[in-house]
């Protein structure tokens, strides 16, 4: 069963077309990796899925993006609700300049939860899922800005899963991290994949093979090939995919 379906999606920033005729299905409760050289439109693609590109004045698109069969760009769509359902972890860790606790509680509070005990319980649970609890349980009131880059990124993940989204978009969540933090985040993805639909952008092909079931290869705004990860890396159908994964360009 597909959670997300994208049909004939074109995306433009002003006059320049950044995504060209993208068609892709993202199955439920699996991890899908997006790979491709820098500037090929991976971030743009996932930011189209939670309508984050709406913030960019020059953005325009045609084609359709469906979440559980509902066109998310239909005029009646509640964007706030959509973004609650589709959580996002950004390429660069971006915690709020607030306490660790407040960072995780933020999403709960803006969605109207105001029972302090319930909030505290959810914060703890989310920090545990993000494998950060043990490192921060004694300093929940400290500023999140004082955490290391890897801890900040796990905090951002905790903040995202606290909202209990159905889909999690991760834009190179490990690009700024050391191998230990990377391993922790990959372990986390393995834990989350049974309950969440995850789309992860990565430049690291080993990472794609480690965490994902499906992989899609983007090049210059086009989706070249999508397949089971094991298959795509061993036996790509397209010459360009093969060139990329064997390191001949990109």
């Amino acid at each position, binding site marked *: 069963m597909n959670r997300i379906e994208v049909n004939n999606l074109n995306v433009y920033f002003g006059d320049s077309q950044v995504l060209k005729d993208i068609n892709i299905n993202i199955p439920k409760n699996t991890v899908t990796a997006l790979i491709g050289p820098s500037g090929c439109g991976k971030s743009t693609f996932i930011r189209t899925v*939670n309508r*984050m590109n709406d*913030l960019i*004045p020059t953005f325009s698109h045609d084609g359709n993006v469906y979440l559980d069969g509902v066109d998310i760009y239909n005029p009646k769509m509640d964007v*706030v*609700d*959509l*973004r*609650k*359902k589709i*959580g*996002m972890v*950004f390429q*660069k860790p*971006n*915690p*709020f*300049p*607030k*306490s660790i606790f407040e960072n995780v509680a*933020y*999403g709960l*509070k*803006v*969605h109207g939860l105001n029972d302090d005990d319930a909030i505290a319980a959810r914060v703890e649970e989310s920090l545990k899922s993000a494998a950060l609890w043990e490192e921060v349980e004694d300093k929940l009131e*400290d*500023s*999140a*800005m*004082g955490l290391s880059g890897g801890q900040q990124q796990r905090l*951002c993940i905790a*903040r*995202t899963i606290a*909202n209990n989204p159905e889909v999690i978009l991760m834009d190179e969540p490990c690009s700024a991290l050391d191998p230990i933090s990377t391993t922790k985040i990959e372990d986390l993805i393995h834990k989350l994949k049974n309950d969440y639909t995850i789309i992860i952008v990565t430049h690291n092909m080993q990472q794609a093979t480690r965490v994902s079931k499906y992989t899609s290869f983007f090049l210059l705004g086009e989706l070249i090939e999508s397949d089971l990860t094991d298959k795509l890396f061993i036996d790509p159908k397209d010459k360009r995919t093969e060139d990329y994964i064997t390191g001949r360009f990109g």
Partner: protein
Amino acid sequence: MEKNRLSEFLIEKGLFITAIFSIVIILLIVSFILVEGIPAFENYGFFHFLFGMEWGPSRGQFGVLAMIIGSIYVTLLSLLMAVPLSLLCAIFMAEVAPNNIRKILKPVIETLSGIPSVVYGFFGLIVLVPLVRTYFGGTGFSLFTASLILTVMVLPTIITISQDSLRAVPQEYREASFGLGATNWQTIRHVIFPAALPGIITAIILGMGRAVGETLAVIMVAGNVVQIPGSIFDPIRPLTANIALEMGYATGLHYNALFGTAIVLFLIIGLLLLVANYIQYKYKVDIGGGYL
């Protein structure tokens, strides 16, 4: 290579000398005011001067309490009106208004801060004084009228600087907040406004400085009676007005007392800055050191 070093040396020294020069000039002015003002404290008694109720130069009375209170009231009342107004306006311009409206509003508001104070004063005299007289009674020359004028005068300062600090909040915070499903207003209120708060406090401090120090426009509408006002529709005389009104003919101890008034004004502004800086520092620490 040698030539580069030499010009580097000259530029460095040149900057150093310019900086020293401006500091020396400021120190000269301050010491001049101190030298001229302190005799008033010596002859009349510092506390007598500060807390004296009577100001009658011809009778040798130099108590400035009523004027201190006048200055504080007029500043507070104008901030009370200006701060909410200008913050709402800054938020509108920085976060809500579409680009083309912002492009028109910004220069308009910046121009407002360039209008000379005599123009504001004149407007107050011709338009506001009669209005206040008609609707609230009294002569129309009052604490309230002066506060209204000051409100209009500090608006551009607070709006412009708060707006800049709101715009300077990194886009990542907005994206993070929207990404969690927060609405526009929730994002402004819980993320953008707190992140911009140190800058906003700076804006309010500068606005406050302008209100405490403004002289001409206030003289024209405040009534200038030396008294502690019983209501906001009574006339007042702030410290600045006192100096400007009497400087022309003051001699002897009276002359010193006006410099004493200036010292008191100095102290008040210094105190306000200290408090404001403390609040600002505390907020920076409170919101998590991200801005230290």
